[in-house]
């Protein structure tokens, strides 16, 4: 009778141990079988009532049951026992450390943060605006008349006659000036969209930082000073730069800022199209027509504005030759930065 019971306990144990996949479950097994009130101990207790003749054989069977259970238990305890294992084993300092996952900001955001910090240090606020923008803010208030070729400069995604996916972050300038009286000094980072064929050089969306400073005596000379300071902080103090005339409807005079190509050091290469210069931003003095839309007196106030594309800057800085890499979110790319 005790023989059969021993077999049943063994069967139960075999089943239980199969399901044991944690230290906690092992502990329950230990309690069930091996503890002071455990089944094995109970069986040993019953040995007293076994007829003398059977005692040696039953005792032997019981002992081997205890050995088997203890061995199986200890074996798994080694696997799941956690602390026991490390402390009991001799420490091997050469074993690899445990793995920890680290988070990261997107490379474009890292680049943007760097730009933001430089301008915040110069006293600029940071403003944001919607990506779905009205024609008024995106174009009209920025002195793009309807049916004007200047609108071709920015291939636009339309969602209705009155709304577009903003083609630049410049509309936020208008939104801020509507809200505040001069002095206004801020940068406006954000996402913009252009209906351009997707290639290594262009994507249907990208990120920009716009900036504006309006006060009673803001000049082109000061615009140059601010942007040269920015460029030197961002790219290094030994950089050469130039400002050349350009055209944007919302600034007059308008300029583009080039810096010496830091790949070829100005000798001319593929990246700078043999010119030795890299265009990094557009800028100019706020056009009086823009002030008209926000009720600023352009006789009293002058201002400068600038805008730059983050992707382009990040591509140059990190040697990335395909803009699509930023939006593919290839984990192998994300892990690099």
């Amino acid at each position, binding site marked *: 009778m005790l023989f059969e019971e021993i077999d049943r306990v063994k069967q139960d144990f075999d089943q239980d141990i199969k399901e044991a996949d944690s230290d906690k479950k092992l502990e329950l097994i230990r309690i069930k079988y091996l503890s002071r009130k455990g089944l094995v101990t109970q069986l040993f207790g019953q040995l007293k009532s076994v007829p003398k003749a059977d005692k040696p054989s039953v005792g032997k069977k019981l002992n081997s049951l205890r050995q088997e259970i203890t061995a199986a238990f200890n074996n798994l305890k080694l696997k799941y026992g956690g602390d026991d294992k490390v402390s009991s084993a001799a420490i091997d300092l050469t074993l690899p450390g445990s793995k920890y996952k680290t988070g990261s900001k997107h490379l474009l955001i890292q680049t943007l943060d760097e730009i933001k910090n430089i301008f915040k240090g110069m006293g600029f606020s940071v403003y944001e605006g919607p990506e779905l923008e009205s024609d008024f803010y995106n174009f009209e208030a920025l002195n793009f008349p309807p049916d004007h070729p200047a609108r071709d400069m920015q291939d636009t995604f339309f969602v209705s006659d009155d709304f577009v996916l903003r083609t630049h972050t410049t509309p936020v300038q208008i939104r801020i000036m509507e809200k505040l009286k001069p002095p206004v000094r801020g940068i406006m980072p954000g996402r913009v969209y252009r209906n351009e064929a997707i290639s290594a050089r262009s994507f249907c969306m990208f990120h920009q930082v716009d900036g504006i400073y309006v006060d009673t005596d803001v000049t082109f000379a000061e615009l140059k000073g601010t942007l040269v300071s920015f460029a030197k902080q961002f790219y290094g103090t030994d950089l050469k730069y130039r400002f050349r005339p350009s*055209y944007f409807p919302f600034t007059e005079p308008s300029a583009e800022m080039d810096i010496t190509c830091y790949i070829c050091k100005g000798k001319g290469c593929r990246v700078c199209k043999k010119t030795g210069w890299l265009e990094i931003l557009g800028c100019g003095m706020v056009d009086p027509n823009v002030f008209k839309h926000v009720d600023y007196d352009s006789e009293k106030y002058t201002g400068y504005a600038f805008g730059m594309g983050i992707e382009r800057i990040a591509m140059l800085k990190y040697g990335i030759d395909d803009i699509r890499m930023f939006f593919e979110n290839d984990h192998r790319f994300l892990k690099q930065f």
Partner: protein
Amino acid sequence: MNISLHWLKDYVNLDGISTEDIVDKLTMAGLEVEDYTDQNKKYSTLVVGKVKNVNKHPNADRLTVCSVFDGKEDLQIVCGAPNVKAGQIVALASVGVFIPKANFKIEKAKIRGVESFGMICAEDELELSDDHSGIMVLNDDLVPGTLLNEALQLNDVLLDIAITPNRPDALSHIGVARDAAAIFNRDLKLPKIDLNESQKEAKDYASIEIEDKINCPRYTAKVVTNLTIKESPEWLKNKLKSIGLRPINNVVDVTNFVAMELGQPLHAFDLDLLAKKKIIIKSTETKKKFTTLDSKERELDKHTLMICDGEKEVAIAGVMGGENSEVAESTKNILIESAYFNPKSIRKTSRKLQLVTDSSYRFERGTDPSNTLYASQRAAQLISEVAGGEVAKDHIDIYPSRIKNKEIIIRFQRIKKILGFDVPKTEVVKIFNRLGINIIKDLSDSLEVVVPTYRPDIEREVDLIEEVARIYGYNKIPAVSKIGITMEKRDDESLFTDEVRNCAVMMGLKEILNNPLISEFLAKITGKPIKISNPQSRDMAYLRTSLTIAALQTVANNINKGEKDLSLFEIGNVFNTTNENLKSFGDISEKRKLLLLLTGKKDERSWNTDEKSYDFYDLKGLVNSFFSKFSLDNLLNDTYNSSEKSIYEYYFSKNFNDDVVAVGGKVSKNALDLFDIEQDVYSFEIDLDKIFEIKTEKRKYTEPLKYPKINRDFAFIFNKSVTYEVVTNFILEQSSGILKEVEIFDIFESKDLGEDSKSMAFSLEYFDYNKTLTDEEVENDFKNLIKKITEKFNAILRGN
């Protein structure tokens, strides 16, 4: 705009100025030279060769094996051109020479088993034209071995200038020459008109009437009779070819030449094809069809400005002529149109027809209304030179209301206020003179000037200031550092988003940025999407309505590349519409969201850890950590839903006063199937705009507990249907208040417990802020709890 330096030098003497200097100075004056080609450099690697003999290729019918003398030795060359013959003088590229068009370097090659040591070039391969019918055959008198640039006098420099939309005046050689003259302080030379006109007057041949005076302020015409249409002379063909235009016939070539010389687009009509010898400029009253000279039928809108004869339309004004009045070989008499059209009207037509021509491009930017007569005379003179014929006396010039020159006052003090430094008055005067801006009054501290009509962009004082700065040189303006300190609190509207981002990074997630443009099908799964009116493709025709639906493609792409274990976040906007017609901001919902996404393995197998996949509880823990970081955990309540909805198989949400502020869970198989994802994905989206609005109290310091905590554990066997939350809440309700924390530390099911049962073990934390608890107090509460739980849930206490 393609500009030939040779051609440019017809109007301004640039002797002694290097090409590099010209390129640099034009760029620095706002005419950005994006690229330039020095033909001398480009063609000096090729030489003149003589084909000595031509033999059949042993293995290919269409190929020949030629022997070509390069001035020093004979080269064996395998040639595929049908026109190659012994004795020809050809353009030869030997091994090592770069072929621009094909973008490759000639190498020694074996072509179908025969060695070849060079190439005999066709015109297109050298970018001299688009002719690829055969090799280029050169004049017999050229000596083999002569450099090709010398032999063909290819010594021009071709500039590719990016002209900004405000500078229509620079869309011609004379326009660029005018700026060059101003920059280098040289004289501008305009071609002289010296016409030998016949007795009969132009108005005897044709009559002109403008009906739409708003869209056609001026229309000028010259008539040339008895001309002969033929091929243009070499000089004319070369000029056009140098800037990439294809010669057609002498009359058309002259009109194109003058357009590129003066920036005034011209059109030549076959006078004999004009019904009633009449030109009427009017806008269409109804929609109609019209065949342009490229033999394409175009659909014209109502109100399209047209050139008509006495019976019918003969040209789309400013855009393209009609097939029905085109100059052809048989043409004898022509009428040359030189008009000024309203830029807006031309732009509208060009956009509607999606037809941009050299002509429409110039008209829509604004041509010079004062220049139509001069341009027509220039064309008439050149046509009579290259096509013979007689130029009819005088011209027809309808100009009902003269476009006035703008008069502007510019103040020196204002120049300083904008630029930040003084430009000397003498410099300002010099710059205006060179740009053709006439000073009519010198008011000592200001100037009153008249702006020429070819500069429609100069309308205000500030535009003149830009001209001064541009020619004087932006680089002469100092870079001043003068930023003042701010007396008001600085705003940073991106601060909250940045805090959210930092929190996500802290939690070990990697940031992704996805394209918000997705397909209609996907966009409709998670919202009421906004459609792009002019999408690039159907895959990108709608704006995303959730971050998850746009991010799943990223997950799929990574899995395909073997990157299966991802813990990601994205901050971005999602767009929904509340109204079909987007007329105001009220019809649009643009919201900033945070996406948390987990998939694959949480822990990889390693010597001290076992493999573990992400599960729902990892997501929930992540979400709760996020909210507790923002002190929102106590303000929000959870709701759970275990049935499938939207993209989730089961999900939970965070609510603030019944308003859902965040939702997520296990992404359903149906959703994953759309992207062929075969592993579990957990995602959660948080509405950052809403979170931002929930005012949380400023975190304040709380003093650490002074009195000891007492812990007790118990485990019960419950019916499977009893949830953790119900038990925990019950425990907290039933306790006397000294119980502060309840945590579940174990849960399992097993055969021993029975089919319908599960074990849950809790640890209880007792303490009091003001005193040390006695064992008795705790023991009483603990025993009471055991009793209550046993009764309430019919649970069995498991032996301790």
